[in-house]
């Protein structure tokens, strides 16, 4: 039998293909240097030896131990090729070739495609020549104007001074100008008045808040875990860190490094460790009976995906299950990135199950204690003791199976409770903390954490700028430094593009989350590179970029629709005018707070609980309380509203606040009837309308009230027609309330028909489209 087989094989060998020919014909369509299905190329000897996600494909001289052979023989789990089994002669050819030591395979000819624009370093473009020399205020304008002139379009005129100041105040601080600021600006006709206003706004503490909120969208910041239980979590210190870092114009490279690896910086300060909360904003699932490893893997993947989206503008998540089809990220490289983030403790110390302790903060949270050094040291020490006791109590329960009334159990409970009472008051924040022993990382075949491929180690993807060379294993800190290396062509481009998108409603690259080969091409590629290089040259100062954009003539244009421009450029991609943009959810609230005069301007601190409709917490599985904040905390800016992932504040949801489930690079902007119901009827907005009305009455003489109301709500004077319309409403309402004093009392909180009628006027202004729109 054996002999017969040998004769057959020899006979076949004379006529049949060689092993490499079989591979070329049947395998290399998927397994080539470019596609690398499952990480495997079969087009060079080295590639075959290097293997793929499952390990080496062939052992020279040993076909019986070669994965390639078991795959084509269908003798193992993996059966290849997918289209149908190879013939016996083909299989034999491959076996012979392996037996012979894999000789006689020539690599494919190297083909070099031009590199995708976003992966090449930004070069500094020259400022283009423009026809209209009077328009440009800075280089931004020349790039935009040159493009417009190519289409035969002229830019729009500058917006009115009122519109300008309101626009830039909301864009930089999320708050309107006060009437005094507006009056000052209107009166200051000297050179540089607008630029001085921009400087004032950039140094306002509210600038830090506004731009922190944009960043928190990327960081998927929330005050709870998500998942079925949606337990509260302490991480507002991270939110405050972002506010301070942006407010003080921390160089962006440092800002990035501290969020990726602040804990690994030698001699890291508590602040630098708090910054790593960026990565702790992932969801946490503690439902009883849950497979913890599965959720831990999900959290790590979320960190890799967020890293890719936020810092590289790439959809790294595609490579979780297979090599990225279009961008230079192999599945193996995804897990090499994964390895950087795979080395932290997801659930804190997590000794006994949560249900055994009901003490999430002590047992299940990787928390940093903040406060006086003596307090934090004591807190940490006590927590260690409690952990040991929880563990001991758990062991005792397992061992002794105590019944109710067991003295041993009661004593243990008491000891733990006594320690808990002694915990000093400190502030806590979720942070990254490496495990003492690094966790091993494997490729997850098909993205399934139960199907292990080969082991991988932390390293940067190869398709980008050079990775550091190090004898020691690379760490998150190495990744952070690699990310902010000016040789990285993506970070600066992606960042300035996102900043730009907040000023115009759309990025220069419209797919602000995809700079890969499938993303949109930049509408102004030279402008993008000019801004990116400028950002790095100015020491990664975000304020420098804000200053450039906010003082540019392009930004200062009127937003009025232009039919002539729309014919050429219906989506206003070329920016022949500004865009009107509805405020983000939090800013809708801030605008109402500002008009009402009730705004509490304090920055930072624990999240607060402004009024919300009854029933807003009903939907969750574990019903949470919502204890309305009293006093000034009732009137904090929208960004401080406690964010429950499962039951977020309804007024924020209807205005498109993102759900904080994953990084959000662009909010949607919808217009819906539920928004109308919120502004018209919500108790919180009604309270602010009352505040607004009493301000109108208090701060202005009767004939100046409509004017003041317009200033407070819209930062401009009314047109005659608008003034008449409100005057008419006021007089009808006043007459009506005089005949119905009980309604006046309900409306205004006091039986004062005048105040009630002004409340009607205030409500109307607060419900106009303009009130919630940046013109």
């Amino acid at each position: 039998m054996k002999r017969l087989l040998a004769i057959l094989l020899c006979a076949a060998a004379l006529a049949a293909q060689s092993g490499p020919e079989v591979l070329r014909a049947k395998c290399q369509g998927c397994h080539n240097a470019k596609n690398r299905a499952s990480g495997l190329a079969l087009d060079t000897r080295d590639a075959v030896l290097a293997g793929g996600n499952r390990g080496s494909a062939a052992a020279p001289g040993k076909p019986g131990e070669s994965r390639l052979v078991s795959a084509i023989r269908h003798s193992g789990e993996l059966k290849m090729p997918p289209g149908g089994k190879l013939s016996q002669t083909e299989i034999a050819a491959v076996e012979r070739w392996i037996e012979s030591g894999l000789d006689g395979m020539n690599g494919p000819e190297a083909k070099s495609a031009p590199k995708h624009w976003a992966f090449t370093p930004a070069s500094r473009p020259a400022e283009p020549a423009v026809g209209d020399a009077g328009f440009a205020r800075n280089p931004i304008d020349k790039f935009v104007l040159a493009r417009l002139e190519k289409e035969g379009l002229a830019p729009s005129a500058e917006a009115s001074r009122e519109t300008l100041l309101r626009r830039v105040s909301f864009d930089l601080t999320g708050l309107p100008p006060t009437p005094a600021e507006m009056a000052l600006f209107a009166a200051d006709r000297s050179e540089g008045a607008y630029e001085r206003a921009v400087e004032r706004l950039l140094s306002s503490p509210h600038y830090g808040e506004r731009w922190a909120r944009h960043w928190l969208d990327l960081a998927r910041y929330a005050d709870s875990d998500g998942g079925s239980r949606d337990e509260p979590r302490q991480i507002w210190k991270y939110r405050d860190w972002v506010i301070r870092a942006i407010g003080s114009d921390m160089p962006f490279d440092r800002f990035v490094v501290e969020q990726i690896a602040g804990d690994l910086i030698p001699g890291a300060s508590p602040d630098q460790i708090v910054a790593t909360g960026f990565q702790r904003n992932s969801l946490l699932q503690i439902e009883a009976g849950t497979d913890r490893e599965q959720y831990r893997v999900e959290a790590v993947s979320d960190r890799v995906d967020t890293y890719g989206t936020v810092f590289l503008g790439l959809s790294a998540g595609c490579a979780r299950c297979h090599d990225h089809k279009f961008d230079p990220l192999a599945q193996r490289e995804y897990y090499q990135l994964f390895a950087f983030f795979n080395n932290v403790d997801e659930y804190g110390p997590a000794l006994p199950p949560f249900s055994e302790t009901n003490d999430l903060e002590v047992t299940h949270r990787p928390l940093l204690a903040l406060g006086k050094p003596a307090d934090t040291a004591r807190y940490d020490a006590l927590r260690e003791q409690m952990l040991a006791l929880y563990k001991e109590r758990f062991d005792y329960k397992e061992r002794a199976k105590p019944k109710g009334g067991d003295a041993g159990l009661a004593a243990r409970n008491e000891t733990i409770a006594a320690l808990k009472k002694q915990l000093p008051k400190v502030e806590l924040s979720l942070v990254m903390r490496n495990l003492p022993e690094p966790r091993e990382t494997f490729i997850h075949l098909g993205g399934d954490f139960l199907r292990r491929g080969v082991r991988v180690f932390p390293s940067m993807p190869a398709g980008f700028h050079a990775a550091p060379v190090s004898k020691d294993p690379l760490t998150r800190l190495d990744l952070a430094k690699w990310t902010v290396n000016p040789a990285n062509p993506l970070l600066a481009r992606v960042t300035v593009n996102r900043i730009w998108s907040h000023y115009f409603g759309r990025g220069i690259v419209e797919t602000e989350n995809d700079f890969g080969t499938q993303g949109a091409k930049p509408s102004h590629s030279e402008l993008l590179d000019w801004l990116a290089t400028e950002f790095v040259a100015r020491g990664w100062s975000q304020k420098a970029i804000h200053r450039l954009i906010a003082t540019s003539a392009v930004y200062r244009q009127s937003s009025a629709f232009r039919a002539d421009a729309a014919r050429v450029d219906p989506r206003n991609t070329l920016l022949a005018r500004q865009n009107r943009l509805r405020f983000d959810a939090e800013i809708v609230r801030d605008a109402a707070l500002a008009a009402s005069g009730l705004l509490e301007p304090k920055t930072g601190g624990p999240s607060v609980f402004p009024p919300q409709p009854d029933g807003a917490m009903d939907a969750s599985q574990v019903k949470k309380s919502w204890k309305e904040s009293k006093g000034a905390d009732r009137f904090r800016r929208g960004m401080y509203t406690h964010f429950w992932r499962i039951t977020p504040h309804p007024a924020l949801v209807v205005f498109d606040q993102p759900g904080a489930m994953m990084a959000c690079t662009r909010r949607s902007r919808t217009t819906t009837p539920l928004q109308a119901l919120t502004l018209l009827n919500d108790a919180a907005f009604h309270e602010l309308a009352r505040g607004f009305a009493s301000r109108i009455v208090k701060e202005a003489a009767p004939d100046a009230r409509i004017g003041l109301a317009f200033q407070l709500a819209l930062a401009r004077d009314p047109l005659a027609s608008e003034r008449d319309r409100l005057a008419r409403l006021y007089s009808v309402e006043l007459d009506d309330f005089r005949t119905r004093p009980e309604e006046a009392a309900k409306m205004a909180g006091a039986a004062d028909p005048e105040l009630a009628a002004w409340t009607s006027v205030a409500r109307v202004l607060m419900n106009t489209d303009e009130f919630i729109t940046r013109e």
Partner: protein
Amino acid sequence: MHINRRHFFERCGTGLARIAFASLLAESAGAAPKQPHFGGKAKSIIYLFMEGGPSQLDLLDYKPKLAEMNGQTTPPSLLEGKRFAFMERMAAPKLYGTRSKFERRGQSGQWISNRLRHVGSVADDIAIVNSVVTTNVNHSPAMVMAHTGSMVPGRPSLGAWLVYGLGSEAKDLPAFVAMTSGPRGPRNATDIWGSGFLPTEYQGVPFLNGPDPIFNLQNPPGVSTERQSRAIDAIRDLNQTRLDATGDSEIATRIASYEMAFRMQASCPDLMNLGTESASTLEMYGATPGKASFANNCLLARRLVERGVRCVQVYHTDWDHHTNIERGLDKVCPEVDRPAAALILDLKRRGLLDSTVVAWGGEFGRTPMREGGEGAAGRNHQIDAMSVFLAGGGVRGGVTVGRTDELGFKPVEDPVHVHDLHATLLRLFGVDHTKLTYRYQGRDFRLTDVHGNPVRKLIA
């Protein structure tokens, strides 16, 4: 789970053509009614979602052999490689045969338990699927999977995809509504009726159990209907002035949204007033006006569909019977059986069943093994088999699709993954599940991810 490799290419290969919207500032235009990919009978869906995991073995999947082997130790070969929640409770489990009585019902002779005797009376209208498979043994991820096609929260739900794909036909109501009854809210509330990365106008609006189904439906204190109407007139006039000055069509949308809000305020009391239903209709559902219940929600669901609402999710959250399953089913089946059947009958007699899909099912099934002691028997979570039934909207009535092995451990014929179920539901609406996509973070997403095939046997 079947992965059609070609879908990978289709997903990542789609070019820029799919980028969101014609106009950056006019996303709201997305809610207008739109044409499906091909003809489909369904216009609306009412999904009766039985949260907790109803026991298919006591309701819809008849297993005489399991009853025969009741009390015997489960053959270990059947447990190999299986995953359960609370693994520690599952050492050497005993088989547990149903205590419920099954009968062949209707002309079609489908096996249905007497615990669902009213559902049995519409046996010829429903298709029973006994081979539905899901991927995760825990409630939360299984809930998110059943609604969004992914176990990780953050993707759009079935209803959101439908409204995104087909728009809204409701003039004064949200296009997608979620209602809840039972001892507590469903898990992962906002995830399961959320819009994920789709614009929020596509998300489900949770109806509250009370006279006002929506937040902020009542005018503030001191504001009568006339006063509200005057305010909206003034708002419209000011908005119109601004529209004239700026030419921004989004202001016209804003004006329309205030008109619709006012209509919603006017129409919701009428919608919610079940007192206008005939006594016989109320009796048929077992509904009592003013008393929140699954029955009331089923009746409301019909009223919503009549008013053009695209998707109604009706949750009942009392099906997690780890122990004392008999007592549990004694309580919950009567709460659900009659209203579910009444809904199908009521839709049918009003000519609405042809255009309305009614789906009934949970996030997973339950095990053939007993959990808990003999006196307090229950069943654990089971992901390899559960039962779902469908009716209306182009569903083929009177058929049972999919068969599990004789003990009910896993499908042996026509397995239907949750992705397949989703693909089928979209197909009933004339929507090709591979073509309903949305580009986010550089990728085209869809309800069925990279999976799913419509189940032809379920479609008439």
